[in-house]
């Protein structure tokens, strides 16, 4: 065991030096790091519990997505059956029980109808399964059911788009360094350091921002329209609640044509503007085809009203006084500057393919984080000094080696975390305490074993050798067990438990290196150089 080849000694020191060098940027305040141009290096991020900020967990309304898909398929089937050659007459189309079913009038066309419906389905995933199942029931009726693979695929796609849209919306507000990523199959996690009032953010993300322009049915007395009751070809859409309106006031409904003249998909820009009364408004700019559609619709429907519908609510229903040819429009309603700006951002970043709901929300004030760090640092320094002194008075030179190992271990853990771009949270600090505790324990085990072997009358070299050998077995076993529980926590744990597990797992690996290999090298070097006749341990 005294045999430490030179290359080994050099590489051990190099690893430790690299650890210290990589850990240093994380230990500096931001300002200092920037001055020294070290802010480009990987650093440890502080968790929201340490620096303050908001954490939002959003969940997609998948039931709504499935419903949307059914509706879309219904529209497609209607047009395809009508448009194709020969035209296939269908009736009694319905979307209940999560399936689309319709009746083919001419039985001889049934096969052609199935063929045409099948052509609307696509292969998804690795198995190439179709996204819809097409079946014939009672030899006249076609039933289309979304397959599991199809639903999963559409949720997956919607979540990807939704994550992007959320990112765009948050970026537009100028928020710095938000963390946005998908969690599981239907969730998005948003963390914004420093944000204290998440209400605006929630409002912004909560909007689906599905914008549609539809004609108001001028043949209907609008005051007679109620929820769910509109003439054929029309739908009843509620009016948005005006601010200041009593919460229990009856909701006003509009009968509008089902046909969409123009939708948010044709937008190229939306911005905050002012209307003729200097009230805040949202100015919309359409792309070429959108502009053309809008121009045609306004030419054909002069004198009529059209409804601007956002997320299923009528924002306003202006009268078309003259054709609008410029490809721009203005939404005015009762906006404040803030709400108009928010709507503009939401429209600019596109509509969310699926509605998102906040299911978990945490906001930590900046002072709490600061106090926690401050208290944590003081406590750690005191704890370290106490442990170091305790080890020194108990094991002398061997205690000094152990202390050196523990200090270097802290640097190496920080370095690994910085390389992994890890996040340090309060439970992570607790993980640190446990790791350092077990690292100290490793050295206690070794040193106690050396004492024991000395007491049994073995020679110095043999005692040290045996001490390391026997203790290493125990340390290995203990670390294996820690690794097992650490891995389980990492996989199953949420948030804080995960933060704890990451530090624990890193610490297990690094502490074997510092507490066993490194101290053995120091001890071996000392014995080789000085050939002591007695050791104080």
């Amino acid at each position, binding site marked *: 065991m005294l045999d430490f080849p030179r290359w080994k000694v050099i590489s051990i020191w190099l690893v430790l030096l690299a650890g210290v060098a990589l850990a240093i940027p994380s230990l500096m305040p931001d300002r200092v790091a920037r001055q020294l141009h070290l802010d480009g290096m990987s650093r440890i991020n502080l968790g929201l519990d340490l620096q303050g900020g908001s954490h939002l*967990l959003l*969940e997609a309304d998948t039931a709504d997505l499935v419903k949307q898909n059914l509706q879309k398929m219904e529209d497609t089937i209607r047009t395809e059956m009508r448009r194709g050659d020969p035209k296939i007459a269908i009736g009694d189309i319905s979307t209940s029980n999560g399936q689309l079913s319709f009746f083919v009038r001419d039985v001889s066309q049934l096969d052609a109808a199935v063929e045409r419906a099948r052509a609307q389905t696509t292969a998804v995933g690795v198995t190439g399964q179709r996204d819809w199942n097409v079946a014939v029931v009672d030899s006249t009726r076609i039933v289309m059911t979304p397959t599991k693979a199809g639903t999963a695929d559409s949720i997956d796609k919607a979540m990807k788009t939704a994550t992007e849209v959320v990112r765009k919306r948050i970026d537009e507000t100028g928020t710095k360094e938000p963390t946005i990523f998908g969690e599981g199959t239907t969730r998005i996690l948003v963390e914004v350091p420093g944000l204290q009032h998440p*209400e605006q953010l929630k409002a912004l993300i909560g909007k689906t921002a599905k914008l549609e322009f539809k004609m108001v049915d001028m043949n209907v007395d609008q005051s007679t329209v109620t929820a769910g009751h509109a003439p054929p070809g029309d739908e009843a859409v509620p009016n948005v609640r005006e601010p200041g309106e009593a919460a229990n006031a009856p909701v006003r409904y509009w009968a509008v044509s089902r046909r969409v003249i123009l939708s948010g998909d044709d937008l190229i820009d939306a911005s905050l503007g002012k209307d003729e009364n200097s009230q805040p408004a949202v100015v919309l700019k359409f792309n070429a085809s959108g502009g053309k559609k809008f121009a045609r619709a306004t030419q054909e429907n002069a004198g009529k009203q059209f409804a601007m519908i956002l997320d299923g609510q009528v924002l306003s229903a202006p009268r078309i006084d003259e054709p609008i040819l410029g490809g721009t429009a203005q939404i005015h309603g009762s906006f404040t500057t803030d709400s108009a700006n928010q709507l503009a951002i939401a429209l600019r970043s596109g509509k969310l393919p699926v509605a998102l*709901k*906040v*299911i*978990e*929300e*945490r*906001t930590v*004030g900046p*002072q*709490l984080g600061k*106090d*926690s760090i*401050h*208290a*944590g640092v003081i*406590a*750690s320094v*005191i*704890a*370290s000094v*106490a*442990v170091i002194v*305790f080890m020194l*008075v*108990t*094991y002398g030179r061997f205690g000094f080696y152990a202390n050196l190992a523990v200090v270097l271990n802290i640097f190496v853990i920080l370095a690994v975390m910085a390389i992994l771009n890890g996040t340090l949270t*309060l*439970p992570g600090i*607790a*993980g640190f*305490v*446990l790791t350092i*505790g*077990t690292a*100290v*324990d490793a050295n206690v085990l070794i040193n*106690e074993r050396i004492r024991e072997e000395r*007491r049994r009358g073995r020679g110095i070299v043999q005692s040290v050798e045996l001490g390391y050998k*026997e203790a290493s077995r*125990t340390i290995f*076993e*203990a670390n294996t*067990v*820690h690794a*097992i*529980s650490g891995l*389980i*926590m990492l996989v*199953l*744990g*949420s*948030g*804080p*438990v995960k933060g*704890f597990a990451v530090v*624990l797992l890193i610490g297990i690996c690094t502490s074997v290196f510092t507490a066993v290999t490194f101290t053995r090298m120091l001890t071996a070097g000392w014995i080789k150089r000085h050939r002591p006749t007695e050791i*104080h341990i």
Partner: protein
Amino acid sequence: MRLLKLIPDNTNIGFVRLRGWAFGLTALLTIAAAVLVGVRGLNLGVDFVGGVMIEASFPTAPQLDKLRGDVDSLHVGQGNLQSFADPHVVSIRLPIPSGNDEGATNRVVNNVKSSLAAKYPGVTFNRAETVSGKVSGELIRNGLLAVFLAVTAIAIFSWIRYEWQFGVSTFVAIFHDVLVTLGFFALTRLEFDLNIVAAVLTIIGYSINDKIVIDDRIRENMRKYRQMDMRALIDLSVNETLPRTVMTSLTILLALASLLIFGGPVLRGFTAAMMLGVFVGTYSSIYVSSSLLISLGLSPQLSEPKKKSGPPDSAERVG
């Protein structure tokens, strides 16, 4: 230089002799803990029951009763107010407002914040958390599953690595540690949240570490002294590892004490739980898991071909 030796050389304390007493104490503690958890229940945080939590920091410690009245007068549901360690800091817990409307939660939080700010000038809000029932259900399930799987996996490891008796005794001992820790939380009404799950896992980690050290020594001595009686062998192993046990627990307690005193209120529940865990874990290594090895019939002779099973007393004399 004379070095510190906490445990004199050749200490030989008859730990096993006190086994009967210890068994009574263990049973008492475990039953008390189970009753406390069952009857009094844990003070589960919003992480596990769902709801709204607002933590407010007051410049002067408020009277909880008056504050409770102020919150109740807002008609935002049955409020639950608590103050731990630091009387300036009060956590206010409210149920999630009915209805799916997200604005409702915002309104409740803002309502409480603004009316408290008006009545208690200088109040600041450290934290505001809203956890829906769905998420809290998942969190409690995942937390329980993580603890259960961790303990089971560790027991299986001990079983594979040594004999099955080590697996069983470790499992029982850790179960005991977890139960006593939960009893402590039920007794003190400290808030039990996700961070505390991490603390419970740390306690398990520490306890298992301690058991591995002693088990490993028992195993080593079983190979060395084939004729020794199990009781004497366990006493020998515990005494041999005693300096390490004392040294390590003292070091960790030293570090934890500084966290408890200087570490700020956020970590206090966490640290208190860990300190208790160090005591409980050390105790259960000797009096639950090691004692159980005797009851489960583990003996050094087992690894030998079974030619004789002489009276244990004579075996001790030979060893």
